[in-house]
């Protein structure tokens, strides 16, 4: 793990710290292009620190707060060195994303730094002129956000997305970069647009786009959320390799203890003391609350819900896409069944059609062939033909909460809408019910006044779960609902769903790459590969083999 650079440099002029800062500030522009050409050699500003590799980013006692509002980040300290990977962990809402964005001089709207300083490659990013800051972002520090699906321009092809930031935008280099990020370049992926890629592929395209500029510092927010174990390991090996060969400082904010164990050299845990870690609402309180609501809604809808149905089933689902004239089958004859009160896991590699299957079940995409049934009765494929009761009974928690929560509405308004729409709560009870829903997913009630962009990734994901639960559904389709949650919160959310399953015979369909969650909280598993179910059966039989 020793970087190659410093040994070749020998002793630089001046002492550590001040001398390095001055040199770097003086030739910031030149150093950017020099580093781009040869990342390990020829950088005059590199200085060996006491620990053996140079510190490129240092954050001391950083505190960020909203004007007159809550503290977003308190007393954060961080030191990044070349060639090393630092993991940033901490509970959801601890300020991991805020810290990463602050490193490139971007603070949330209305926020300011109330204490501490940030030094990146010798620049104080908080006082840097806009043009120098832009240069820093363009050539030396790359940031990949939590939600690459919406961060990639939906109208640009992958090829251009990567070439846009690349030092060398030639098609060959771009292909190599994509291949380096384990993307299949042979089947026309470079000519596709982000909307046609799976969540995992989007994430890797965003990574390729970040690497294309050959940065000195790479900031990754949840780099492996939504990726399966095999891909996650490949990505973490890739990061390891890049950190060493390119002598790059990597910092990743993540919840995944396996990833941290696998590739991080150092771990920085953020602000345990800022907010109490969100705890799940006590089960006995949550379950009885849900019961009368469901009964009322059921009586109003006339379906009762008591006669044991057969649950949600699908037969022979086919979904075809045409990609530049070439047909592509996202689902090829998939059969699916989930009994009431059961929990079914869907696992499989990235791009195998898991999300497409959920979207078909939710009625967001009509299959080209195949049928859906709910409790033995046919379920129309498009959601808008399903009628209000059917719509209420099948709910989807989407993969990408930022893209699916209305940015103009407060969380309270978002949650109140399904309550009103399906007449689940009386007008005067709505505020109380919203608070209960938030409590169920472990969020404080005052979140109801905030808007989605003011929340952390994990908080958004929980709001999105609460929105789906607001309709008192019978079937809950969860697409990577725990990808942005820390293990504690993820377990709490899964416990909540398990409690609802027992209390209301809620059917849970869980798409996840977190196999330990699937193993612990589902009873049946379907394994999806390239649009086909290759194995299905009781979790106990299938999962030990996968683990």
């Amino acid at each position, binding site marked *: 793990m020793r970087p190659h650079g410093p040994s070749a440099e020998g002793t630089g002029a001046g002492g550590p710290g001040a001398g390095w800062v001055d040199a770097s500030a003086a030739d910031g522009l030149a150093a950017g292009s020099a580093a781009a050409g040869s990342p390990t050699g020829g950088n005059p500003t590199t200085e060996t620190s006491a620990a053996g590799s140079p510190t490129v980013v240092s954050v001391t006692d950083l505190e960020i707060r909203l004007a007159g509002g809550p503290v977003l980040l308190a007393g954060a300290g961080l030191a990044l060195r070349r060639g090393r990977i630092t993991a940033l962990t901490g509970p959801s809402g601890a300020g991991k994303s805020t810290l990463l964005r602050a490193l*490139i001089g971007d603070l949330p709207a209305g926020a300011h730094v109330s204490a501490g300083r940030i030094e990146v490659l010798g620049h104080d990013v908080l006082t840097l002129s806009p043009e120098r800051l832009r240069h820093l*972002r363009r*050539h030396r520090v790359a940031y990949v956000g939590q939600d690459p699906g919406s*961060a990639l*321009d*939906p*109208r640009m092809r992958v090829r251009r997305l990567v070439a846009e*930031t690349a030092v060398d935008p030639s098609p060959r280099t771009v292909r190599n970069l994509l291949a380096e990020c384990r993307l299949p370049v042979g089947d026309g992926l470079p000519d596709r647009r982000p*909307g046609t890629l799976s969540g995992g592929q989007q994430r890797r395209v965003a990574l390729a786009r970040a690497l294309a*500029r050959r940065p000195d510092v790479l900031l990754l927010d949840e780099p492996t959320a939504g990726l399966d174990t095999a891909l996650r390991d490949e990505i973490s090996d890739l990061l390891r390799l890049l950190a060493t060969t390119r002598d790059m400082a990597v910092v990743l904010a993540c919840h995944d203890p396996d990833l941290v164990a696998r590739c991080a050299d150092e771990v920085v845990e953020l602000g345990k003391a800022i907010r109490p870690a969100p705890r799940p609402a006590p089960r006995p309180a949550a379950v009885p609350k849900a019961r009368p609501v469901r009964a009322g809604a059921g009586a109003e809808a006339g379906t009762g819900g008591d006669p044991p149905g057969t649950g949600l089933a699908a037969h022979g689902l086919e979904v075809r896409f045409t990609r530049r004239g070439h047909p592509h089958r996202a689902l090829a004859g998939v059969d699916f069944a989930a009994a009431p009160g059961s929990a079914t896991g869907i696992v499989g590699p990235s791009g195998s059609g898991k999300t497409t299957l959920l979207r078909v079940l939710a009625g967001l995409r009509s299959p080209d062939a195949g049928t859906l049934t709910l409790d033995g009765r046919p379920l129309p494929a498009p959601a808008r033909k399903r009628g209000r009761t059917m719509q209420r009974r099948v709910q989807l928690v989407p993969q990408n909460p930022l893209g699916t929560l209305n940015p103009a509405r407060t969380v309270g308004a978002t949650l109140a809408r399904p309550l009103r729409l399906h007449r689940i709560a009386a007008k005067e009870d709505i505020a109380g019910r919203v608070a209960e829903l938030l409590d169920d997913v472990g969020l404080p009630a005052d979140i109801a006044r905030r808007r989605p962009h003011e929340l952390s990734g994990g908080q958004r994901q929980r709001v999105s779960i609460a929105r789906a639960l607001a309709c008192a559904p019978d079937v809950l389709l969860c697409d990577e609902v725990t990808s942005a949650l820390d293990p504690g919160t993820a377990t709490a959310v899964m416990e909540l769903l398990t409690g609802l399953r027992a209390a209301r015979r809620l059917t849970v369909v869980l798409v996840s790459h977190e196999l330990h969650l699937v193993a612990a909280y589902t009873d049946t598993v379907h394994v999806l590969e390239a649009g086909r179910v290759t194995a299905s059966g009781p979790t106990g039989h299938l999962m030990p083999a996968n683990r």
Partner: protein
Amino acid sequence: MNEAAIRRAGAAAEATAAPAPRRALAAAGRAGLVLAQRALLLSVLLAVVFAAIELLPGDAATATSERGESAAGTAARRHLLGLDRPVWERFGDWMTALPTGDLGTSARGERVTGLLAAPFPNTLLLGATAFAVTLVTALALGCWGALRPGGAVDRILGLACGIALALPEFVVSVGLLLALSLWTGWLPPVTLTAPDGSPASWTMLVMPVLALAVPQAGWNARIVRGALADQADAPHVTAARLDGLSPRRVLLRHALPGAWPAIATGAATSTGMLLGGAVVVETLFNYPGLGTVLSGAVADRDTPVIAAVVACTGAVISLVLLGADLVRARTLGARP
């Protein structure tokens, strides 16, 4: 004729894009359906025009009668013009003749096609030039303001565009006449017509075009600016900014493409305003276009001429709106 050409071009484009002939056929069917809808819309519009003229006091026979013509003479001419028949019969006759290119006969006994042959291209030239000037100015001003949101340029432009869009065409025309013609003498104050019926020199187009374009450019610049402001908050635009791309690149490559649907729709609605404003502006500058023909025809209660003018301008507006819809479909189609 226009529609047929577009249909052919559309079919050709579909054929190259889709390998399967069945898909090409389906696409052509969809295109045909869309064009049929537009045609239906146009005929409803023409029916409204016929009804509206019927409701105006007086008819073509009285409006065009010679001084001292006897009541019997007027009645005879009314019969000759077919005005004693019910309006829906006359509408039916006129509509069934339309596909053959026959626009009927005016109250003064001239072929309507002949009446419009010279003015219509002139108005199209005026309108198209004003449209191009509007679009370029609006895009330039909107993008300029969006480069530094809330900056001095942005605020001044916002105010100036607000004033420009509030100015009626005739006020702008009078201002232009004073400034460019009477005080400085740079441009001719009225349009002289060449023997072929077109304006004698391009300098005569400048002021009418500006008079039409200034209010519309104000309106469209505000739309461009607003659409870009919406896009600036999109996650992928934020991400592009955090990637350190230059403000110009972020604006032109990442924000503007997403703003096209709003811009195209705004510009397309301007077509109607441009052609409507042309009536006033053409009268003021004595420009030989449809405006003069139309105002004369309304005074004469000359239904076939009015309907023909409406049919021509309506077809143009309809085509531009169709183009805007295509831009929208194309841009939004690139999304998941």
